[in-house]
């Protein structure tokens, strides 16, 4: 955690009663659309990863690299609810926050919004932490503290 900038140019941090929310933008690629003329539903789950990456980056790049070297955060569960479609060329805002931190898992919550702020998709992912040898272990203390906001992004 040698560097924890308050914001990066592609990331906005919004304070909320539910803790910090990290926002990032993306533009819908044609490759993400399908024959129904809208974004294929699995791509929103990849966008959740974009949001989660932004969240980690908001904690500081040093943190991201330390995490990458320390082990892995495999996904144990995903949920997505689809409210309205995104289309080619739309600017989409992905908002990410930490919904729950347990001793061995963390749950992120996501909202994909259109430019006017209307909800397109909401969802969450739950992650375990694996050490370098691939065993599920307790979250490293520095990571846990960062996620519960004792060292807020």
């Amino acid at each position, binding site marked *: 955690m040698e560097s924890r900038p308050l914001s990066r140019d592609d990331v906005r941090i919004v304070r909320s009663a539910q803790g910090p929310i990290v926002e990032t933008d993306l533009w819908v690629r044609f490759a993400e659309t399908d024959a129904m003329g809208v974004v294929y*539903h699995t791509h929103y*789950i990849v966008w959740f990863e974009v949001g989660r990456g932004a969240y980690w980056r908001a904690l500081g790049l040093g943190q991201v690299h330390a995490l990458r070297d320390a082990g892995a955060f495999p996904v144990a*569960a*995903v*949920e*997505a*609810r*689809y409210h309205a479609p995104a289309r080619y060329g739309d600017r989409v805002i992905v908002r990410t926050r930490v919904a729950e931190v347990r001793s061995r898992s963390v749950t992120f919550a996501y909202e994909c919004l259109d430019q006017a702020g209307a909800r397109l998709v909401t969802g969450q992912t739950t992650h375990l932490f694996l050490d370098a040898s691939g065993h599920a272990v307790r979250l490293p203390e520095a990571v846990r503290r960062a996620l519960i906001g004792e060292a807020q992004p």
Partner: protein
Amino acid sequence: MRRIIESYLRVRYAETDAQGVVYYANFFVWFEVARVGLLRALGSGFRGLESAGVCLAIVEATCRYLAPAHFDDEITVQAWVDKVGRTSFTLGYAVLNRTTGQRLAEGSTAQVIVTFDEERRPTEIPPGLRAALLAAGGIENKA
């Protein structure tokens, strides 16, 4: 009695990630393979729906991951009909390693029948599909 329809695939290298396993979002694409297989087995298929002037819009998707899949694994994806409503129905899925039988993931999708036009208006499940979904073990959802 619940009918379980199986579809088969082999993991492509393109589906793996830097952790050496299948990237988790790809399981939802496999659910689609199984969903299309199930609709084909029930008679109408996606093409049949489109020629009836409707298509499916996913409104909810879930997945729980039990074990990873790896490049070149042979995979079985099972799909079954769970609940059948007026305009929507839910399907359940299980992903298995076809060689070992190990269960890798389980999940669900909820989909709404919408008009295959600009409006994409929710509309009743076509009677033929509805009958087939119920005959395959779907439980009528009166909510």
